[in-house]
């Protein structure tokens, strides 16, 4: 298999007396889809928050190997992590309510553009104009791919739940990330929407994107994942290819209770 893109190394996070993550380690290989599964409260979202810089782990390190460089994620703040090439979505959709769909997605291009204050104001600044044009084109293409062109100018919160999930996905992709982290992207979707989401994820992987996924629905996880990591009570209890994990007695116990 190919080289490592993300290395989560013995990460521990406590909230007061509760150990949310305990010595969790795994690797995400470049160009693969890795799923993070586990019962509710297992620490999946906490791990996502550690990777994206929203919270800081007490112990351990999270490293990103991007473009031959090694970057330490643990201890960085969210906007620095985004700059390193990681984009994420949220379990409870967090779209910008006061913006249109298009504006939401354009905000995603922020890290890939540079125009500063004077360029933004000065109408004859070449770079700002090129960037705006590029950002608009990129956003339009993403909206088209996700079937959202028709609603581009609607307020984002006026869309259906499934559409909002897709807007959030488009917004994350607009930043042209190396690693895309999706927190329960299939939650609340219809069967059909789930199918097209899975197809889309496979398509993204073919294009070389690496995806880290939190998902509850095994019908989504099993067919799309190259690798599955299982958390329970903040600790990794198993990892492997989907088939092996599915048959792992520890995993079955965690999900169904001791027999």
């Amino acid at each position, binding site marked *: 298999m190919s080289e490592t893109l993300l290395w989560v190394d013995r990460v521990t996070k406590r909230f007061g007396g509760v150990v949310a993550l305990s010595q969790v380690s795994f690797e995400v290989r470049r160009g693969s889809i890795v799923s993070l599964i586990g019962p509710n409260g297992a620490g999946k979202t906490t791990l996502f928050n550690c990777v*994206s810089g929203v919270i800081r782990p007490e112990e351990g390190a999270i490293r990103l190997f991007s473009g031959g460089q090694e970057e330490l994620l643990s201890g960085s703040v969210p906007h620095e992590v*985004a700059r390193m090439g990681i984009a994420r979505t949220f379990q409870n959709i967090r779209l910008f*309510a006061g913006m249109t769909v298009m504006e939401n997605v354009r905000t995603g291009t*922020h890290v890939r553009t540079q125009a500063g*204050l004077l360029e933004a104001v000065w*109408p004859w600044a070449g770079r700002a104009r090129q960037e705006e044009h590029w950002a608009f084109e990129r956003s339009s293409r993403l909206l088209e791919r996700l079937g959202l062109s028709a609603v581009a100018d609607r307020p984002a*919160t006026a869309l259906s739940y499934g559409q909002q999930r897709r807007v959030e996905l488009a917004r994350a992709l607009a930043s042209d990330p190396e690693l895309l982290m999706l927190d329960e992207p299939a939650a609340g979707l219809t069967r059909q929407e789930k199918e097209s989401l899975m197809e889309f994820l496979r398509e993204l992987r073919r294009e070389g994107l690496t995806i880290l996924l939190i998902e509850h629905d095994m019908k989504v996880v099993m067919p799309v994942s190259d690798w599955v990591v299982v958390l329970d009570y903040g600790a990794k209890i198993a990892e492997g290819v989907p088939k092996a994990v599915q048959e792992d007695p520890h995993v079955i116990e965690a999900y169904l209770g001791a027999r």
Partner: protein
Amino acid sequence: MTGILMLLPILDSNSYHTEILATAALYALLALGLNLIVGYAGLLHLGYAAFFGIGAYAYALLNLRLGWPFWAGLPAAGLIAGCSAVLLGLPAIRVRGDYLAIVTLGFGEIARVVATNLESWTGGPNGLMGIAHPAVGQVRFGVEARPYYWLLVILVAATAWACARLRRSRLGLAWLAIKEDELAAGCLGVDPLRMKLLALALGGWVAGLAGCVFAAKQGTITPDSFDFIQSVMILAMVILGGLGSIAGAICGAAILSIAPELLREFSTYRMLLFGLMMVALMRLRPEGLFGNRYQVPNGQSVPGTKRRV
């Protein structure tokens, strides 16, 4: 539009009316500046008049002590007020929402108290006198309101234009993003701290310009022109017009500075009527005159959107 506004004092040469227009234009400039901070970046700032005062005192001191002419003092006052906004913002910006309002309120009061008590520099409660009026070549502005009105209209137009460009740029989107959801914006690579400081710097700069023109027009400044009530009035203008709206800030300023004059004939009941007007307006249009009806308060949204300017 700007042209029509420029002509007003020629069509109506009543100097009392021109004086009111100049005041309205001054407030329009201040409202535009505060709109950058409150409307764009979403920072509830209750001490904005302090930057207005800092700009006024900056020009007054540069003029009285160093003999700087108005046109050199104008950008200097803007810079000094902008820098003060950033310096005062650095400790305050780490707190959010209501707490930020309290901290900025405190800073605003501190600035006024410093101006009142630092007598050797600011002249204390008596303020500073004999500040030079501007001049263009041989033409002196003097005490007549008309040239100041023209200058202010130019400044308002330039500021409004810059704000409109900013709003459409990536920075405008980034401001809106941190205002809506700071965490999500951060995860998209927007540096919230930096964007907030930028808004403060720009808002401070605009207040500094306004303060400089005010000091040059009055010739005399005292600390009570920059008190808490002043901050609240400017904030009321921005909210009345609609947070984030450029046209709203200008109209809000025009209405709130002209209405009390129109209501003069009701003498005693003037402020009562003024208050009732505001309550009624906010009740009927909570999003302000030019506000965006993107989201109605209960979270439902109205399809078909108006572009945000």
